[in-house]
């Protein structure tokens, strides 16, 4: 169990750092979405199903959608 959790945390860090590095903002947003999704899994493992649902539906889905709409209306690449 602890191994799986450690791998998930590692993956979460990699996604977060990817969000830091990517110059393409859409990719960065998707990486941030990945962070939220893994956080939702961790919430579920921490016996918080309510929060896991909220994080998956709000943090991962809607926030990403709003980000992508905003990027479409502004600019896609970070200079």
């Amino acid at each position, binding site marked *: 169990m602890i191994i799986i959790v450690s791998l998930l945390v590692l993956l979460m860090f990699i996604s977060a750092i990817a969000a830091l590095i990517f110059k393409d903002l859409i990719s960065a947003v998707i990486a941030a979405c990945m962070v939220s999704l893994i956080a939702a899994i961790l919430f579920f493992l921490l016996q*918080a199903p309510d929060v*896991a649902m909220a994080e998956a539906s*709000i943090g991962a889905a809607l926030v990403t959608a709003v980000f992508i*709409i905003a990027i479409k209306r502004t600019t896609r690449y970070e200079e």
Partner: protein
Amino acid sequence: MRKIIGIILLCIIAWGIFMSLAKIPFGKSESKVGNYYVEEGRRETGATNIVTSVVVGYRAFDTLGEVTVLFLAAIGLGAVLATLKDKSRAVIEDASLILITGCKFLFPLILLFGAYVFIHGHLTPGGGFQGGAVVASGFLLAYLGCRGDRISKVGSAIFESLGGLTFVVIGMIGLAIGSRYFLSNFLPKSQLNTLFSAGIIPIIYIAIGFKVGSELSGIIDQMMEES
């Protein structure tokens, strides 16, 4: 330079936080309040989902504030985007047939699932916020598929207002009758683990579900305008 200063600053904070975390060992939570809620929550509020009984029962005032924050975001967003001059929408080409059919098929199912989540908030995981978000993601899907269609602004505004007002009015009724506390549970709690139980909790959660659903769809709609 800025990066180095940032890293040094963060390291100092990290060290301090890990010092304080030693007092909070992981996996051994001993909370007076939490234990009380777990033990007495079913009896005092009638909800089997203790998180719901905390969110809409013991700490319902927080939830009123939370609903207000979301409402604020929706109006603030409207106010910020309202003065944009070019309201015209660019010509959007239609989605493919498969996407349209899929959306038409999935949209009612997603709404149904959202409604299920917020109606059963006091029995199973989920509740008004999660259900509302699911409903809003249904609308998001509909925007992707049926690109010409938009929700009615008037309709969503009315749902928003009515949802919020229901919450406030139920609180006021609690203040006026019964034990005379704001948001006190004045309805009978009835049989545990049935749909019609827990007094005002399901009513408030359904109101929140409608409000959050219409608000988030409204936010997406306003952001999408002219995109």
